[in-house]
């Protein structure tokens, strides 16, 4: 990025730090200078920003980020003072602004780097979004605690994390109910059935031509609405949720598998014909392997759909546990931090599930051209 803008940004950050020494942190509280340890850290941050401003190129990133960390720690420690939390004024916010500005400058500078070596590139590709996300979380934390936002509306990340750690047994039980029983079982049934029907549709062309339009039609429908009917048929417990998940995952798998089974090229099909291969041999040796990229595409889509399906199905009624159940009841009770903890659980489960499927995909479809660019 333009070194002048970079330098200007970092100089502003330094000025903001300087401002925090003179401006009041909150009405009627001791100033920054009166707090041993903290003012030295803030001064260090300011010095680091100054150094970074002096470099104003790639070398500025390390001191810049070090300064950001120092300033962030100062602001977070200041929030421990209950007189500041909720009443923060200019002095406090200037530290936050300094940290934010310097972080933004460093992120921009990092993003503009184009290192030659592959490992460095990969490092930067991970570092940039991580830093960006960390900045967002930091601002969230500081804003909620600095402005004194009632936790009912929005808890701070730290409060949610604490609640997460404190509620592990409940979370584990919910995870077991929703994910292990509802999601995994329904996913296996839905995807398995979708694949089987697709194989039949491939074998019997008439069936395929009838099912494909129907499959496309049903894929677009709000199938989670079927949840109350499943509850009526299978009861309140996890079988009804698994049934919803099975139905929701069936159609994307059907549509994708049918497409995948027809993906084998003409020449390869003629080759199998020239070997007088039986239909089953052609299926296992040609059609199924060629269909794997499509099947995994559906498996990835279904991983997200299954989790959403199970949670939403629980909104319609569930015994006493489950992620969806917990979210709706705790939201009704205004215990928003518990809701966020459950959402964090669902997010982690979702990402782990998706990541697992992606790893399996890479292991089995390593040969596909899309991996070889």
């Amino acid at each position, binding site marked *: 990025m333009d070194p002048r803008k970079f330098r200007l940004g970092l100089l502003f950050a330094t000025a903001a730090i300087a401002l925090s020494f003179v401006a009041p942190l909150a009405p009627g509280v001791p100033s920054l200078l009166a707090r041993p340890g903290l003012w030295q850290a803030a001064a260090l941050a300011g010095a680091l920003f100054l150094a970074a401003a002096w470099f104003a190129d790639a070398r500025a990133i390390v001191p810049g980020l070090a300064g950001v960390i120092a300033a962030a720690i100062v602001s977070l420690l200041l929030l421990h003072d209950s007189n500041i939390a909720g009443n923060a004024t200019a002095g406090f916010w200037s530290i936050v602004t300094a940290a934010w500005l310097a972080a933004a400058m460093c992120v921009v500078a990092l993003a503009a780097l184009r290192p030659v070596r592959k490992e460095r590139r990969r490092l930067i590709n991970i570092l940039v979004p991580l830093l960006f996300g960390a900045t967002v979380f930091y601002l969230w934390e500081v804003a909620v605690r600095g402005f004194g936002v009632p936790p009912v509306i929005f808890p701070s990340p730290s409060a949610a994390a604490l609640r997460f750690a404190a509620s592990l047994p409940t979370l584990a039980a919910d995870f077991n109910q929703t994910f292990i029983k509802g999601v995994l079982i329904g996913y296996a049934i839905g995807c398995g059935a979708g694949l089987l029907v697709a194989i039949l549709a491939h074998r019997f062309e008439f069936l395929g031509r009838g099912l494909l339009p129907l499959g496309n039609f049903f894929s677009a429908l709000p199938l989670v609405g079927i949840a109350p009917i499943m509850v009526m048929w299978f009861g309140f417990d996890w079988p009804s949720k698994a049934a919803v998940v099975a139905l929701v995952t069936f159609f994307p798998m059907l549509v994708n598998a049918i497409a995948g089974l027809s993906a084998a*090229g003409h*020449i*390869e099909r*003629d*080759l*199998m*014909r*020239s*070997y*007088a*291969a039986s239909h089953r*041999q052609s299926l296992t*040796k*040609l059609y199924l*392997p060629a269909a*794997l990229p499509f099947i995994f595409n559906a498996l990835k889509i279904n991983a997200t759909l299954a989790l959403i399906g199970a949670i939403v199905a629980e909104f319609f009624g569930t015994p006493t546990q489950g992620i969806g159940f917990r979210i709706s009841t705790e939201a009704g009770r205004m215990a928003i931090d518990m809701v966020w903890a459950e959402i964090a659980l669902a997010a982690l489960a979702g990402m782990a599930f998706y990541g697992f499927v992606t790893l399996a995909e890479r292991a089995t*479809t390593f*040969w*596909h*051209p899309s991996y*070889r660019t």
Partner: protein
Amino acid sequence: MAAIKPNISLVGPTESAATDSAPRRLVVDAQNISLTFETADGKVEALSKVGLQVAEGEFVSFIGPSGCGKTTMLRVIADLQQPTSGTLLVNGMSAEEARLACGYGYVFQAPALFPWRTIEKNLKLPLEIMGFSEAEQQKRVEHYLSLVNLNGFERKFPWQLSGGMQQRVSIARALSFDPALLLMDEPFGALDEIVRDHLNEQLLQLWRTMGKTVLFVTHSIPEAVFLSSRIVVMSPRPGRIIDVIDCDFPPDRSLEIRETPEFLKIAQRVRTGLRAGHSYDE
């Protein structure tokens, strides 16, 4: 326009090609093969009363412009397409029976190797389908890979090999189950000239040592004249045979033969036939 004999109905092996006096077994006996199909623009006659007899051990090339029916003829012999009329005997049985008895190996324009299988597993594909034992499969893989000079590439994947090497694997695969007949549809069309020359030499040597019957479709006149014992010149709309040329170059020929006057004379005859066939479209 030179006088050309259109629509030769029966083409058989000439005696001069055979050094032994005993008549050789007919591998392909096609009479009056016609193939018409419907398109949006009306009927197209891909093949019109084509007749062909190929004896064991011959190398017959089919050459002609696009749409002349040479690939269609090959696919009819392979039972990948059915003719509308005419009779066809392959190895003394119907084309379908020959296919079910795995009587031929087909090499396509593209290598058609399965990207999820290693080279070794790709070679084993027809052997698995036809039910060879594990030990037999392993033996054949080693033998045929060395025949095409690709030992050491067993564990590689197709995309790690160049186009020419992939096509060699494809040829090895077609040979792996010992078919009597080899059908090749422009196998070297996608390769550059230097690789193509090299592969032509290798194919010639393979043919000489193994004594298989080869039906070879190509666009390239020098390739056809270099490799074949007989050249069939075809022309389109309707697909038919314009000319049949016998070549009896010495079996141990090298690429230098392409500069000799005899070679050029035959190539000229081929070229005249092609041009004449084309001129019917004016």
